[in-house]
């Protein structure tokens, strides 16, 4: 087995141990899917482009531990998310909440699609109309030229 494969196996085992069922603490049992769902919405603070659920970093591992503990203490997933937003700001959320100024992020792409489709439709309409109107103009070939074309064709055959 190659080193890379061994390293991968080691990582998988480690991941399994962090994601696997945790010992039950307190009164409520923690559903690991809930832990994963909350972690997947949080940005890993040390790697920026990964979620806390996907990051192999120690910080993300500790954050998953905190999520698990807070759920075990009886907090709702929304409360756990609120806890992280209170400390890191909305920056920690991978997708900005759909309200206020953030709505721009959701609405602008839609607006861009609408404008783009409208522009494309106008252009297509124009092109199709222009060629129809322009055809007679390109078809004007003077008598001398058509005579020459006829002669060339005859010689070729």
């Amino acid at each position, binding site marked *: 087995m190659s080193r890379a494969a061994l390293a991968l196996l080691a990582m998988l085992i480690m991941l399994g141990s962090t994601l696997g069922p945790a010992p039950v603490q307190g009164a409520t049992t923690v559903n690991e899917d809930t832990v994963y769902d909350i972690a997947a919405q949080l940005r890993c603070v040390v790697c920026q482009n990964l979620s806390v659920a996907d990051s192999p970093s120690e910080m993300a591992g500790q954050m998953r*531990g905190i999520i698990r503990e807070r759920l075990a203490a009886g907090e709702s997933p929304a409360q756990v998310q609120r806890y992280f937003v209170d400390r890191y700001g909305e920056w920690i959320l991978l997708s900005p909440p759909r309200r206020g100024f953030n709505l721009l992020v959701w609405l602008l792409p839609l607006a861009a699609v609408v404008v783009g489709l409208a522009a494309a439709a106008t252009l297509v309409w124009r092109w199709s109309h222009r060629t129809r109107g322009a055809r007679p103009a390109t078809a004007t070939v003077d008598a001398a030229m058509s005579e020459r074309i006829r002669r060339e064709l005859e010689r070729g055959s």
Partner: protein
Amino acid sequence: MKRLWRWLIPLAAIPVLALLAYGFRVSPRDIPSPLVGRPAPAFALATLEGAPLSLESHRGKVVVVNFWASWCYPACYEEAPVLERNWRGYRERGVVVMGLDIQDKREAAQKFVGDFGLTFPVAQDLKGTVSVDYGVYGVPETFFVDRQGRIRVKHVGAVTDDVFKSTVDRLLAETAAP
């Protein structure tokens, strides 16, 4: 109409370019902390020597909470002497410096403290609960807490003599008044 149409596409590119220019100038690492101005989260840890370390026991003093790690080179190595020097200079004036070591090994932390001859209290935040409570996203990060226990300044990166003195002097002066 035709002329306007010809200009529309290049004109449409301007806001996009402006957005890109803005985006590339802003560092994604500069994240404003929502905690500035709010009460500093409480914690109760044990120092490397085993003594209890909490924020409450220093209420009424200006507290400098420094998050660091032995693997954080060079920034943490640059600021360690600065923190030690200022701790010695200010401790008689009601200022406490505390180091919270995160994501680290105990031996490495002890070696770091020994190498720099740190005399201010240092504790390990083994589970990361305190770092997350403080919204820490990297090391070093330093929080300046006023006498009322509110976070007043969050400093990201190595603390310099300038930053330490100006911030602590301001907090000492301001809270000295009734």
